[in-house]
């Protein structure tokens, strides 16, 4: 279905609107659907769509997608709703560092493992030459850390039904953030405020 301006409302940058289920449910011009967001995470990073069964997706600002676990009316004018997760309305969609740190452990593709020295440079915001024979574009950089003697990191906390990590396919790698891989170089996309000299 194609969008035409007279049929669809314009996106209002100051408020949150919940993403429609499918492109056919769209009422706001240019807004992506939940289906397309889940497809992107599955196609690019092999994150199973059911990972997000407990979450809804929202747009505030042009193309800025937020992921949220709680209750809310839509549309709503509010300071924040969950966390920013994805930038759409541009040729190459780009996940956020914070999203990748939270959900990247569920990814089974486009995950590049960095040894400690490379990981340190990555979180310091440096670009570096690394070996990678997979797809170019946005990757999840990850490394091994905090692994207990038994080999695998344990799940979250005390209760039996803990959320993000339990179902992780590659549970022994901890996501660092998003990198852009082009021409043999991994460019750190870690935002300035999140960069650290470790």
């Amino acid at each position, binding site marked *: 279905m194609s969008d035409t301006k007279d049929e669809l409302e314009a996106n209002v940058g100051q408020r949150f609107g919940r993403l429609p289920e499918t492109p056919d449910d769209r009422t706001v011009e240019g807004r992506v659907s939940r289906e397309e967001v889940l497809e992107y995470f599955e196609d690019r990073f092999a994150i199973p769509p059911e990972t997000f069964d407990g979450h809804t997706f929202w747009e505030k600002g042009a193309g800025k997608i937020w992921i949220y676990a709680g209750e809310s009316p839509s549309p709503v004018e509010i*300071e924040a709703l969950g966390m920013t997760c994805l930038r759409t309305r541009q040729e190459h969609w780009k996940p956020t560092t914070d999203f990748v740190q939270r959900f990247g452990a569920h990814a089974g593709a486009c995950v590049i493992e960095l040894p400690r020295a490379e990981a340190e440079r990555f979180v310091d915001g440096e670009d570096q030459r690394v070996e990678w024979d997979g797809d170019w574009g946005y990757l999840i950089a990850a490394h091994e850390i905090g692994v207990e003697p038994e080999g695998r990191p344990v799940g979250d906390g005390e209760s039996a039904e803990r959320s993000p990590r339990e179902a992780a396919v590659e549970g022994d790698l901890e996501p660092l953030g998003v990198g852009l891989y082009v021409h043999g170089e991994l460019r750190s996309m870690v935002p300035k*405020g999140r960069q650290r000299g470790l």
Partner: protein
Amino acid sequence: MEPLERYRPIIDDFEAFLSACKRPLGTAVRVNTIKASPERAMATLEEAGLEYEQAAWHPTVLEVETDSPGGTWASYHGFTHGQEVVSSVPAVVLDPQPGERVWDSCGAPGGKATQIAALMDDRGTVVANDSNLGRLSALRFNAERLGVTSMVVTNQDARNYSLKPLAFEEFDRSLVDAPCSCEGTIRKNPDALEEWSLEHVDSVSGIQKGILRRAIQATREGGTVVYSTCTFAPEENEAVVDHALREEECRVVPFDLDLEYRSGVTGWEGEEFDPSLEETMRIYPHHNDTGGFFVAKLEVTA
């Protein structure tokens, strides 16, 4: 230290109290269970050669031997969040459950609000509010770094908070970690008492009463409201709760934690408080080598 002299009659071993107030505070972090178990966070600290001690009263509270708790891998990954030991107390007392609707009325910069989300396994709705727009950016930054997805952020005066932008009309639990004279932060901010005046204590207690009353009104019958401050002044602690007991439908409920504390006072400078204020908690610096804190737990009764 001069302003603290007024507490000599209510604090035992007052000299030990004063000397603890003069010692700098150690470094503590809270394990963010949205991203890591306490075991994994501790393993990450160990890998970096950092020594730590786990608090007896809660597995997520760690005292760490470092000057820069923010400059570690554990922090980068959001496994840990720099948070003073006593500052982790009120969310534990609030005891939020997964799926609930919880309000943090004075939520910035977000240590307690993100702890509430973690205690709820990041399921449900945590409404983190603050009247100060500038401080909200710190709250949002912390929430995203810690991977919190269950949080709504609002910017209102908590005293006349409106639930209109929300999907529901009342909360299951509310935290009022009120703005206060901050006497208990003296070990962290040596100039905390420089601006101290009784006029300020009295004026801030008016704000505290307004926020606590609104929190009780906005919480459902049978729900929980926790009131906390980082100050010793009874005017800002027991007197505020006493006022709420008289004006709103609520009662003080007892609670316990595995750390050393004293009961709330039931009178101050000629004023008598409800006897149930004995069930509130005063945490003094010389007892657990922490900052100072006050916590009261209320049940909404209508």
